[in-house]
């Protein structure tokens, strides 16, 4: 009798503990992901998968595009480029030879803009340039500013994201490759809300020909379309209703280090710009959307910045726990880096 009672009590206590954590988790999840204030339009068959290409590694990023080829850089092998012929799907591995090995490279990024490739590291800060196909470095300059992201917008000009010490804010700017001129900062583009560092963070990308740029804030419902001279063409709201970044920043060690106090609510993940369309991956659920969908798919929202409208959304299915790291839309094809693969989709509209 007694053992039976004890067993019941033990079981009861354990399931109570388990249940409590699960309930807390579920209700916390709900508060973080759910927003009933907007509704998505999801037309059927908006997207069809064409093929998957196994890349072998999950550290690739999209470095650029020319007429027939997609170029991928690799975060862990910084001087390696993978060239993918988009018609035949042939891949070739390219090794870049950089003489400036004495430099302390820490964050090498490669960006391709026909007929050049640019290799830069904003922590040095240095920019190297060479011709596509030849793959040797021909010119190099020390950048006038430190930066963490950059996109070449012409043979001799780069747009970058840097820290403006005057306004103590992350700012977009540009600098020339062939002169020693100072960088030109445009502190009005990114709008400070909380600390000017975390709150203005976002994804910076461009059209395949780098003629216009897209900056989509991670933590608020806004994206900005710019021309290559950093003139603002359009500020547009996304579907979501979060206008102010939902982040809390705290400082540790007497203000030496700033850290996020809680995982931020991410409104926009990666994004891409093609023609008049902005494509944004979002993991925020709208009204009538099933919670389970986030385990099976990423949500792609499509906007038209010329018309200033939200067009439609579609689910991009994926296997569990994989995330879409980056997307790039070229014509009607959407390229997505997911896990070890490059997945290619056709967009119907």
């Amino acid at each position, binding site marked *: 009798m007694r053992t039976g009672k004890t067993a019941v009590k*033990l079981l009861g*206590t354990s399931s109570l503990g388990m249940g409590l*954590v*699960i309930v807390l988790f579920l209700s*916390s999840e709900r508060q973080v992901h759910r927003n009933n204030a907007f509704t998505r339009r999801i037309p059927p068959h908006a997207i069809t998968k064409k093929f998957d290409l196994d890349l072998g590694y999950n550290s690739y990023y999209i470095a650029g595009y020319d007429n027939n080829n997609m170029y991928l850089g690799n975060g862990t092998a910084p001087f390696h480029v993978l060239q993918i012929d988009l018609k035949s799907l042939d891949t070739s591995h390219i090794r870049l030879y950089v003489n400036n090995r004495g430099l302390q490279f820490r964050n090498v990024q490669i960006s391709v803009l026909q007929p050049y490739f640019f290799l830069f590291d904003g922590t040095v800060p240095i920019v190297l340039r060479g011709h596509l196909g030849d793959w040797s470095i021909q010119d190099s300059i020390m950048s006038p500013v430190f930066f963490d992201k950059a996109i070449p917008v012409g043979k001799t000009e780069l747009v970058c994201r840097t820290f403006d010490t005057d306004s103590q804010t992350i700012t977009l700017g540009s600098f020339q490759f062939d002169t020693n001129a100072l960088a030109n900062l445009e502190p009005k583009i990114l709008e400070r809300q909380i600390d000017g560092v975390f709150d203005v963070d976002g994804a910076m990308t461009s059209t395949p020909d780098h003629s216009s740029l897209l900056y989509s804030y991670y933590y608020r419902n806004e994206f900005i379309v710019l021309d290559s001279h950093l003139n603002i063409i359009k500020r547009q709201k996304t579907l979501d209703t979060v206008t102010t970044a939902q982040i809390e920043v*705290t400082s540790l060690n007497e203000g030496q280090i700033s850290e996020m106090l809680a995982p931020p609510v991410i409104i926009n993940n990666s994004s891409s710009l093609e023609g008049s369309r902005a494509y944004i991956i979002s993991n925020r659920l709208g009204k009538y959307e099933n919670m389970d969908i986030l385990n099976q798919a990423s949500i792609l929202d499509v906007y038209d910045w010329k018309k200033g409208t939200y067009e439609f959304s579609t689910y991009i299915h994926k296997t569990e726990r994989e995330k879409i790291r980056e997307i790039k839309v070229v014509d009607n094809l959407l390229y997505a880096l997911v896990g070890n693969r490059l997945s290619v989709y056709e967009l119907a509209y």
Partner: protein
Amino acid sequence: MKWGQKHNHRIVETISLLFVVLFIYAATSKLWDFGQFKVQLGQSPVLTAYADGVAWMVPGVEYLLALLLLFNRSRLAAFYGSLALMVMFTTYIVMVLQFSDYIPCSCGGVLEDLGWTEHIVFNLFFVAMAIIGIILLETYPTLKPNVS
């Protein structure tokens, strides 16, 4: 049965002591760097919305249980509490591993150096200890001196 009971008594006391040391150590190391602990807990993908409350409650409950474990009168209740708490920690770890993309740790001190599998094994060991303690106390109520 005298010898066996004495033995059991020793086992129960050892288990209590283990828990007391664990809880006091864990709670103290959390409070030691409370700012950091709160950040880590807040960044945890599982309890995001409740981080503030949980951050105070966890060390509080740990101290309370450690205290209750010291007295014969409250030991059984404290064992049940410890069991519940250890089960909660274990559930939490399993959920973090299962449902989140990034994995932060908010356990204090040296426990932070444990891998996730070691952590689960460590927790399950204490779950087992709590169960043994409870079974002994429930089967031999005489271990509690206040019961005749």
